[in-house]
């Protein structure tokens, strides 16, 4: 193997290992959260769509690296809050009407504000957007406990939380 071929092969192996690691991470994060969401919420198609979208974003972030990958773990931490809190609220305080049990949307918006604030606080510099996107996608699978409007309410909350967090950061600096 001459040096040029060796360089090409090395590059191919490097890219392949990043892709494998990205796929593994996407599976590890999207699959368990997706399963819990499917079990708790009554919208399997929406859960699968959001889970796939989350998986793709995690895969691409991990594979690309740099600023995209740096937002991965903060996003997952902040997003797990958005995921757990609506489901916990639904489990502990059921608000039932007929056959459907929903979490009040105001609660989901509140969770979104916390989630957005935490994501901005944890995001490394230059990685705010991927952090917020991952936090939102993960949280939205739990926000389905608030019905189909849950992810929309969460999005509003996350935007408000992110704006408040960013403002607080600017003031503190």
């Amino acid at each position, binding site marked *: *193997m001459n*040096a040029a071929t*060796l*360089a090409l*092969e*090395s*590059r191919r*192996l*490097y890219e*392949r*290992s*990043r892709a494998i*690691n990205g796929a593994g991470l996407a599976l590890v994060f999207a699959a368990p959260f997706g399963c819990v969401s499917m079990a708790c919420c009554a919208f399997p198609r929406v859960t699968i769509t959001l889970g796939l979208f989350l998986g793709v974003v995690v895969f691409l972030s991990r594979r*690309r*690296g*740099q600023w*995209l*990958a740096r937002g991965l773990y903060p996003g997952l931490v902040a997003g797990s809050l958005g995921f757990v809190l609506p489901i916990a609220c639904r489990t502990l305080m059921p608000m039932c009407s007929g056959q459907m049990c929903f979490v009040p949307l105001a609660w989901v918006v509140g969770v979104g504000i916390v989630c957005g604030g935490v994501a901005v606080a944890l995001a490394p510099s230059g990685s705010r957007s991927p952090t917020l996107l991952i936090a939102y996608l993960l949280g939205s699978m739990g926000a389905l406990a608030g019905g189909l409007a849950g992810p929309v309410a969460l999005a509003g909350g996350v935007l408000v939380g992110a704006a408040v967090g960013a403002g607080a950061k600017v003031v503190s600096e």
Partner: protein
Amino acid sequence: MEASRRALVQDALTRLSDGDREAFTPLFNALWPLLLAFASRYLPRGLAEDVAQQSLLNLFARADEFDSSRDAVSFAIGIAFHEMRTARRKAWRRREDPLPEQPIPDVRASPLDEIERKETDALVEWGLARLSIEEQNTLQAFVSGSPESKLSPTAFRKRVQRAKERLRAILKVPH
């Protein structure tokens, strides 16, 4: 190895593990001669090139796992060292011509390690002296990589196994 080159490898591998593809070429250009020279010191030329190539491929496949708080050159040498051992073991298993007598480098050598190594050698010699002549010959043939020709490979492996177990048992006895 000069400090500037070591710093270049450290910086490039750190950037590459973070996903910066622009660090690939400088890292490749710095590591290829380094690994080839390292392998050539301890292996014959043809085998050294194969080992250096495989080390480089393994390094890039694992570049993602590199922890930037660690030393990049040690990381690269560690991979090459492992490849060298694997190549030697494969050569022995294939019953190829025994490799020239070249010691595998001890990358952590220090005066204390040297004393410890001498003490270990003395202890092993003491244990070998307590084995039967046949067992001693078997172990010598195993270490030199030239098994006794009258035996089948399986019989030789079993004999080596028995001799090693006996040596271990002798070394466990308090002395």
